[in-house]
């Protein structure tokens, strides 16, 4: 239905977007396969005890991270859910949304500032244990960082699950005189258990593909994951055959986990902005109130700690000197420029796919249905081909062309745009589809199309989700370390790359200052986008 030409141009734009994404992924695979064929013995030679240890560690840290994030999250979410009037509840939930927008390297720096060998807590910890605090490197550091990121995420997801319970169930529970234990057993737990595989699976996937945390907090060969091993094979050992082996294994691993999660019915693309409504009052005894308060406060301290440490350590750095450094300016400008391009591309891809999917949904042919499902659910692939995998493929492909470092800006923009796209789609698609549903016929009847339709009808409805998607994509790109770690050089430096360099040369103060700058940049952005969207939503 509706005008054929509009429909076809929308579908065409969607197909072009898909082709661009396919080219990015295909190029990476072409690089990997060509290199694998060229040096087959090298590829198989990489299977050794070291590799087995890396795989084991990759899975083990992800499993521990998931368990340590998800189980406490159940209790934090329940505590928050039972106290809709908890003082500062909105602030706590806002704080719990923060790690999602915070670059991993900033969090890593915060954790080092707090728990590192010279961290703020080193002295008290040495005093308690009686031996000099060795610093939180290795598995411990990785776990703390992963829990810092994923405990709040899991809490919000559980809370969202609890909020889907109809109010009448709570009323019924209190009418029947259910105590806290009975309520948990009969109402809360069944709901959370249904959400558990999805949430645990998501956290597990995020931890398997985590790069920055393991790179900065992992300690040597004993605490290395596949992703970091890929990076080391390419940038330090100059052993592309090994990198190919690692990369292919990483893909196999994630595909297996994805399939397993698919069986569990997990939805593996997190939502960029969850709405968490508060619930009607429930009568709660004083004992439980104390317990819940303790749980929430503990989680709060855990999440706020590294953030505070980032701020304090950053302020302790010589910010004036840093601000005067040409390299810092250069890196900041490069970061912002690339992030803006990346966010534009990401939102554009997301919009064209959402709109093509919608146009196809109106047709009832088989081909349309196939394309529709690809455009609609193809988002999960991002976790299967994380930035490092894409980057490694292209790095190997371009290795002999002399274009590796020249390609850095293109790679950062393209890879991060595609990585942020599922989030952008999540933000844009519901609003887009709802607006289309409402307005399609009226627009067709009034002859509203092209620019007029965009300006008068679509843009006002999509402004807010666009802003959300844009900010998220930009924050993701600003914080990217995976791609730039591979492609970065003295000529193309972003803030995270500069930060990593300073950290590598033990200029910890500089690194802390840069982390504060980067963190503020990302948060300001998300804040502005949120404001912008809200103002126009009225």
């Amino acid at each position, binding site marked *: 239905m*509706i005008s054929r030409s509009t429909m076809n141009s929308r579908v065409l734009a969607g197909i072009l977007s898909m082709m661009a994404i396919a080219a990015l992924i295909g190029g990476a695979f072409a690089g990997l396969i060509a290199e694998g064929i060229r040096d087959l013995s090298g590829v198989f030679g990489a299977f050794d005890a070291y590799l087995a240890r890396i795989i084991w560690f990759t899975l083990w840290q992800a499993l521990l991270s998931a368990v340590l994030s998800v189980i406490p999250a159940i209790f934090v979410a329940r505590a928050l859910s039972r106290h809709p009037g908890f003082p500062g509840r909105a602030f706590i939930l806002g704080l719990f949304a923060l790690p999602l927008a915070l670059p991993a390297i900033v969090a890593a720096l915060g954790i080092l500032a707090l728990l590192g060998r010279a961290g703020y807590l080193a002295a008290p910890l040495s005093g308690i244990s009686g031996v000099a605090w060795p610093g939180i490197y290795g598995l411990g550091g990785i776990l703390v960082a992963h829990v810092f990121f994923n405990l709040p995420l899991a809490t919000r997801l559980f809370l969202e699950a609890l909020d889907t319970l109809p109010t009448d169930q709570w009323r019924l529970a209190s009418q029947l005189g259910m105590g806290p234990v009975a309520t948990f057993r009969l109402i809360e737990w069944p709901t959370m258990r249904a959400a558990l595989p999805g949430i645990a699976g998501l956290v597990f996937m995020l931890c398997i593909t985590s790069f920055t945390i393991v790179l900065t907090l992992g300690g040597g060969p004993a605490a290395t994951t596949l992703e970091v091993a890929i990076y080391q094979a390419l940038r330090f050992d100059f052993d592309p055959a090994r990198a190919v082996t690692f990369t292919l294994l990483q893909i196999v691993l994630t595909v297996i986990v994805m399939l397993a999660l698919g069986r569990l019915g997990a939805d593996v693309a997190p939502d960029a902005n969850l709405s968490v409504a508060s619930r009607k009052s429930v009568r709660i005894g004083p004992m439980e109130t104390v317990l819940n308060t303790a749980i929430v406060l503990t989680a709060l301290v855990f999440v706020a700690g590294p953030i505070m440490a980032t701020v304090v350590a950053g302020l302790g750095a010589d910010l004036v000197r840093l601000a005067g450094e040409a390299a810092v300016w250069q890196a900041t400008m490069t970061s912002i420029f690339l992030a803006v391009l990346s966010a534009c591309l990401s939102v554009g891809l997301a919009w064209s796919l959402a709109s093509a999917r919608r146009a196809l949904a109106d047709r009832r042919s088989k081909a349309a249905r196939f394309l529709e499902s690809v455009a609609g659910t193809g988002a999960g692939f991002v976790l299967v081909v994380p930035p490092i995998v894409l980057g490694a493929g292209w790095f190997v492909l371009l290795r002999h062309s002399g274009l590796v470092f020249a390609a850095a800006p293109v790679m950062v923009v393209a890879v991060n745009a595609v990585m942020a796209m599922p989030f952008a789609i999540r933000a844009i698609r519901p609003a887009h589809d709802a607006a289309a549903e409402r307005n399609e016929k009226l627009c*067709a*009847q009034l002859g509203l199309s092209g620019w007029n339709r965009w300006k008068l009808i679509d843009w006002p409805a999509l402004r807010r989700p666009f802003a959300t998607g844009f900010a998220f994509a930009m924050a993701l790109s600003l914080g990217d370390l995976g791609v730039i770690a591979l492609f970065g050089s003295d000529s193309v430096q972003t803030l995270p790359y500069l930060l990593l360099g300073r950290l590598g040369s033990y200029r910890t103060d500089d690194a802390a200052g840069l982390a504060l700058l980067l963190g503020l940049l990302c948060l300001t952005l998300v804040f502005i986008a949120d404001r912008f969207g809200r103002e126009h939503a009225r």
Partner: protein
Amino acid sequence: MIDRNAVAEVGVQLDDIRFRYDDMEMRFDVAFRPATITAIMGPSGSGKSTLLNLIAGFETPLSGRILIGDVDVTSEAPAERPVSMVFQENNHFAHLDVEKNVGLGRSASLRLAEVDRAAVADALRRTGLEGKEKRLPRELSGGERQRVALARVLVRDRPVLLLDEPFGSLGPALRDEMLELLVSVQAERRMTVLFITHQPEDAARVAADMVFIEEGKVAAAGPLKDFFGEAGPAAFRRYIGNRLEFARKRT
């Protein structure tokens, strides 16, 4: 196109139209008299809305022709057809005020000349929306929202008006008011009106003709008075059941 729209009193004819909706085969072969209100009735899911969507151009038939006046509009886009349609809901853009929502009936880019503005103001007056120009749709009552839709029909000034149960969600008093407005607007503009309703008394009140649809086909068509009575079509009598008595009393 403008010229054609200016010509009042055009009939609508569906010439052996075939259409498939999911598993339902539909076939419409029916003509509507010009400058007349025809009520369209039938059970839910019988294809009433599809019939209007075909005429408005929102659905494309598998075969057959749709004639408005003497012109074959089968392959024309919705905006090109000399047709206005009022839907059950979603007749307005939620973020645009009343004036703009009506103004879109004149210009899809909302570039309105003085004469267009006058037409909008006139239509708002005619539909009793004076003083509510700057309101947003959500600040209006259900009845007022449908008045906005009618005001836009007035500024569009096209000879065919399709109404897909537009007053279905209004209370009895409001519905009566809207029906009155509809009748007076139709009398003034001499539009050909196709009006879907579930209320036999509404049909009896405004329509001269009736088309009864069942299972994707026109089960009966003709002057309205032939429907209400002992001699009415069996399918129609089955459909409205014991309300027949009531409706007959009203007529």
